[in-house]
């Protein structure tokens, strides 16, 4: 049972969240350890600073609290994923198969599943604990370990309770109730899906997006309204929405698959989803409108939608493949950044629109779908 559960939930969790995890654990943590600074920094200083960062976790209560909040957030996200997967039709067999095992066997299996999901946290926590113990910190390192073990066990217990309880299907959701009387045109459906099923992803994206906007406002106090600042911001903001674009493709090909039979022209299917993004990107558009000159604002939004359409089209060419999608996003982002540095980004706009339409047009009747 443990192997099957690990395969479905732990492996699935890593597959779905590969992008976010890559960012969190590779970019952030490794960056702290292997950052190359401008000028020469003596080796002893690098070691000392990195050690200080790790030691802060096991010596400073404030850093510890931040880390525990991160653990809780990670735990919540994994809980949400597993519970969602449990309600998927092809996992329903687990309700009438795994539940025939004794509760403590079920708990053991789910504990190991959660342990695998928590693996990055376990590795980092154990590493920090060992460093802490070496330097004579005992209480906080042991507390972190105990907390993580408790969280792991608590979530595993929650899964056992969940899978052994009777399934109750709610007649509607809060978002469903609120938007019951609203019109639902075809090209806005993904926005409703975001409100209904992707609230947390949406919230995290918006936090990242607005954190960047706040940073821009703080660092470029004099030039926040400059055209170049707006241009760079939109490139980063659209890239921050890559996960939403990835999920939109999945939604379209799964839940809106029927629309391939609708008498809509390719150009309509290509440009129509911009309506969704006009709503989803409303807070960012609002920021642009309030900080940029009117004519500049129009150009920046056009650039934003050209990038967005290119990212969308890439999905049609590669299918539901996070690894390949990340590779392309990384590549395109760097090209766009170079374009920005050499002030040739505006030549990219018509190119991106044409290329993305050609990719979309060629791949719309998707080859990736077996049927």
């Amino acid at each position: 049972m443990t192997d099957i559960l690990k395969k479905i939930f732990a492996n699935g969790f890593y597959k779905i969240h590969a992008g976010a995890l890559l960012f969190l654990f590779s970019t952030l943590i490794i960056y702290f350890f292997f950052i190359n600074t401008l000028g020469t920094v003596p080796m002893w200083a690098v070691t000392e600073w990195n050690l200080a960062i790790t030691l802060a976790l096991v010596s400073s209560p404030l850093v510890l609290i931040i880390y525990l909040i991160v653990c809780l957030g990670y735990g919540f996200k994994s809980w949400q994923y597993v519970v969602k997967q449990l309600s998927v039709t092809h996992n329903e067999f687990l309700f009438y198969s795994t539940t025939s095992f004794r509760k403590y066997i079920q708990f053991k299996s789910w504990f190991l599943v959660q342990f695998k999901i928590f693996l990055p946290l376990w590795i980092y926590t154990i590493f920090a604990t060992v460093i802490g113990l070496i330097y004579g910190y005992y209480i906080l390192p042991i507390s972190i370990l105990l907390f993580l073990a408790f969280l792991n066990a608590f979530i595993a217990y929650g899964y056992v309770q969940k899978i052994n309880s009777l399934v109750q299907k709610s007649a509607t959701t809060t978002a469903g109730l609120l938007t019951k009387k609203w019109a639902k045109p075809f090209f806005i459906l993904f926005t409703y899906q975001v409100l209904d099923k992707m609230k947390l992803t949406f919230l995290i994206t918006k936090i990242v997006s607005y954190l960047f906007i706040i940073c821009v406002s703080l660092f470029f106090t004099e030039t926040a309204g400059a055209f170049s600042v707006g241009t760079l911001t939109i490139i980063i903001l659209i890239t921050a929405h890559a996960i939403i674009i990835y999920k939109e493709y999945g939604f379209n090909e799964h839940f809106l698959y029927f629309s391939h039979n609708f008498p809509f022209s390719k150009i309509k299917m290509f440009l129509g989803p911009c309506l969704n993004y006009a709503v989803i990107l409303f807070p960012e558009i609002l920021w642009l409108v309030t900080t940029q000159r009117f004519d500049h604002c129009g150009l920046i939004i056009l650039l934003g939608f050209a990038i967005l359409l290119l990212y969308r089209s890439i999905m049609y060419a590669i299918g539901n493949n996070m690894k390949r999608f990340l590779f392309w996003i990384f590549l395109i982002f760097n090209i766009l950044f170079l374009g920005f540095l050499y002030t040739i980004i505006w030549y990219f706009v018509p190119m991106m629109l044409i290329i993305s339409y050609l990719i979309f047009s060629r791949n719309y009747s998707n080859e990736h779908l077996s049927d």
Partner: protein
Amino acid sequence: MLYFNKFIKSYGSRTIVKIEEMELSNGIYWLKGVNGSGKSTLLKSVCGFLHFEGEISLNNISLKNSGVDYRKKINFADAEPIYPEFLTGNEMIKLFLKAKSGSITQAEYYIQSMDMGSYLNNPLGTYSSGMLKKLSLVLAFLGNPTLICLDEPLITIDTDSLSVLYQWIKEKYEKENTGFILSSHQPLDLSVFNKVSTLSLKDGKLHPSN
């Protein structure tokens, strides 16, 4: 009339269906074939879901050259339909009525005869597979199609609904001259229809027989 010319549907190097040239006149067709023979793939290619090599046209309207006009004339119901869970049945019907230029009166007739009125205001996430199947059949009959392709229409629905479905097919064919391709493992109740032609899909080849 459905016309295939040098039609090849393959996944990678594996050919699923190959039809050199074939004309299917307007009528009711029962598409037979074992599991994995390519029935759904063929229907989805005909209905404009999947990419293929060659040409398919319906009453001289080419799928590849005039996709919009072609799709106005062809409807489809999936074997296991999946729709956004937050939408209600009524919202799905409205969406299809708009896309397929159907009328409310038309939808009401199908809803009433299939006795679906009581739950159409509920979100689709609460529907059983049978309820979703019935909804998908209603959606396939909306608008003014020349051809309706139903993938495994006999599965999941109850016997009462099955006889209603047979009645719809008969009426649509006799009154509006709408053609049908029905893929099914189970035998159709041929006594309801005056004439049903059979299409057998075997080893990637389509064999028509009367």
